[in-house]
């Protein structure tokens, strides 16, 4: 088994990566601006939906039900998809998925593939695998195209090029599309991308997509998008391959009613996504005449086994938790070292890798709780972060200085007498560092505090001492 999430296993710790991002003023400005805009739109779209909380409850109930009976629904999906003329492939890990996809494209002698809406292919590292097999992947989602042309990495699960502004994109297009002239308006940039992509849509015979939902009863897939490039990618090629994580299953077509109301509003603040493509198998004379689904596990069944972490798989990838997250707002997505950034990435990425990598991610949160509040499927992300933190500590992943400090504190908190002794000890220990009641420099781990903030010294008398003295006075 080679479960992997892109190159997350080799990524630096969140703190290290974030430090680099914080120094990039342009990136921070772009991320702040973009998340502020989407946040406001989402708040408006959610505010006008009277039954928002009920929708959230319904979505969560459907997802909980599916996750408890995932085996049944996956087999139902397979049967229905085959009956509709589709072919189903099962992939235990990233390599199996990539191999299956390469084989399908090769069997058609393809040297190019047009791609849309498949974050999961970033998870499996599909593009490098395709290139190694002599197949050129062409990203057709506008933001993914920007990322591909710039040899960049996605920084957001819905808006992958969120960290880029118009001026940067214009320069990139002029260079990579070899355009001597290009206007500065968004329409000009979209026009350039349209001309570049249309030619490829008509030329390339194999398309590759992801899916937002896989409907068990009919074997259908559903992709939602804003541009129409997805629709082209899903309907123009002769052969279509869809890479789908096994958690994307919903039982019935009717369940889409709940999810499509939640997804558009949560992701982009739209009442409905402009393009909603739903297809089942193949239809003679209409659309792709050969259709494959690759169902991917890649660590998901491991996440499923624990009741505490299982809700992670309920995620519908709307990105609302990224947009609301104060930490993401400062760092952008690259600091998370994974295609899955932000709060959901902080719980999903390490879990897919069985907690063997990306152990710093569960700590990349202030536990402010904003992510839980906006999550359309009510994933209690802070609670899962805490569960994962506990796992990291139990497996010995915490730094020694921290473990010692926590042990010292735990002993002090055993009873009031011990706490009073510890307070006295700290008062003595702090002496060399206190200047006029304030501490401006501390050693070791604590230097991370004093690097940016002063610390008021521990006062001569604790509350408990004051109280004891007061009680004594009253007795006399």
């Amino acid at each position, binding site marked *: 088994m080679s479960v992997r999430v892109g190159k997350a296993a080799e990524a630096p710790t969140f703190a290290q990566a974030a430090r680099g991002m914080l120094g990039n003023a342009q990136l921070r400005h772009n991320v702040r601006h973009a998340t502020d805009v989407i946040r406001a739109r989402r708040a408006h779209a959610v505010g006008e939906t009277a039954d928002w909380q009920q929708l959230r409850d319904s979505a969560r109930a459907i997802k909980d039900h599916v996750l408890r009976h995932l085996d049944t629904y996956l087999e139902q999906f397979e049967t229905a998809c085959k009956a509709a003329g589709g072919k189903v492939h099962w992939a235990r890990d990233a390599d199996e998925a990539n191999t299956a996809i390469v084989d399908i494209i090769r069997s058609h002698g393809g040297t190019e593939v047009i791609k849309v809406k498949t974050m999961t292919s970033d998870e499996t590292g599909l593009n490098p695998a395709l290139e190694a097999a002599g197949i050129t992947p062409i990203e057709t989602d506008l933001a993914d195209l920007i990322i591909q042309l710039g040899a960049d990495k996605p920084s957001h699960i819905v808006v992958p090029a969120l960290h880029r502004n118009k001026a940067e994109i214009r320069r990139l297009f002029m260079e990579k599309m070899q355009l001597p002239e290009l206007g500065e308006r968004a329409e000009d940039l979209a026009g350039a991308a349209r001309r570049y992509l249309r030619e490829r849509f008509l030329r390339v015979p194999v398309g590759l997509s992801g899916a937002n939902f896989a409907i068990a009863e009919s074997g259908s897939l559903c992709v939602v998008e804003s541009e129409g490039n997805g629709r082209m990618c899903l309907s123009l090629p002769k052969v279509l391959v869809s890479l789908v994580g096994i958690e994307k299953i919903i039982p019935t077509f009717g369940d889409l009613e709940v999810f499509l109301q939640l997804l558009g509003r949560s992701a982009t603040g739209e009442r409905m996504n402009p393009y909603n493509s739903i297809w089942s198998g193949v239809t003679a004379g209409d659309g792709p005449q050969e259709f494959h689904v690759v169902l991917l596990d890649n660590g998901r069944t491991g996440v499923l086994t624990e009741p505490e972490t299982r809700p992670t798989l309920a995620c519908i990838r709307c990105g609302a938790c990224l947009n609301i997250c104060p930490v993401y707002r*400062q760092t952008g997505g690259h600091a998370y070292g994974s295609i899955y950034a932000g709060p959901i990435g902080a719980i999903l990425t390490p879990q897919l890798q069985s907690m063997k990598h990306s152990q710093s991610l569960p700590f990349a949160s202030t536990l402010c709780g904003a992510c839980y509040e906006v999550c359309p499927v009510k994933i209690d992300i802070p609670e899962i972060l*805490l569960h994962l933190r506990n796992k990291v500590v139990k497996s010995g992943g915490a730094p020694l200085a*921290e473990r010692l400090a926590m042990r010292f504190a*735990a002993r002090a*908190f055993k009873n009031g007498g*011990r706490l009073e002794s510890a307070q006295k000890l700290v008062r003595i220990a702090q002496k060399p560092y206190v200047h006029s009641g304030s501490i401006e420099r501390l050693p070791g781990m604590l230097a991370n*505090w004093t690097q*940016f903030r002063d610390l008021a010294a521990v006062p001569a008398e604790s509350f408990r001492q004051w109280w004891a003295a007061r009680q004594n006075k009253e007795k006399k």
Partner: protein
Amino acid sequence: MNVTLFITCYNDTLFPATGKAVVAVLERLGHTVDFPQAQTCCGQMHYNTGYQNDARHMMMHFLKVFRDAEIVCVPSASCVAMMREHFPKMAAAMPDAAVGRDVTAMLPRVYEFCELLVDKLRSVDTGATFPHTVTLHSTCHSLRGTKIGERPLQLLRAVRGLSYVELPQADQCCGFGGTFSIKNADVSAALLSDKVRAILDTQAEVCTAVDNSCLMHIGGALSRQRAGVRCLHLAEILASTSGEPA
């Protein structure tokens, strides 16, 4: 009424003035205050950093110390959130079902300081005087954990001489996050820098909140920048009188 004070470990150690202020307010309103010397910590720091086994011991100690208390007053929204959100879960994971029953019996008697004044004691006007311009940092745990909402503002509005100025982007985290401020110091500082900018923009003399943990963080930066803005726990403002100003 008889109020038993859970002062919290960091108020006890670092911010005794807040505890004294809570005592002053409650006694001025005619209540009796008790402070069990055996108390220590609710376990929040350990629990949130991943040391949940240690936190469980602290919960057990808390339950023992406050078992007979009629009303437990806690001048920290985050400690109250810790108890309400995590005590039941920790208890549920323990073999002894009695712990769960103890937690269920205990929690309705636990009040955050503002909740106690507004909901239980019905004393929005604490008789305070504080002739200064004040802004309020709404801590994450007061917004989302305990949902204290408008109560701090109600209390501030009743203070004589106080001029309140709203903090822009009040729902934004200050970046403290307990050990997050140490483990992810750079990101924490970036969040803090936004918060400090918002506070300075208000021209307030004092920034208040219902948690000294956030205030220690914000105040640490204001002090480092020599910004000349004071951080004061809400209780200290409510205790302030013209005779004994905060």
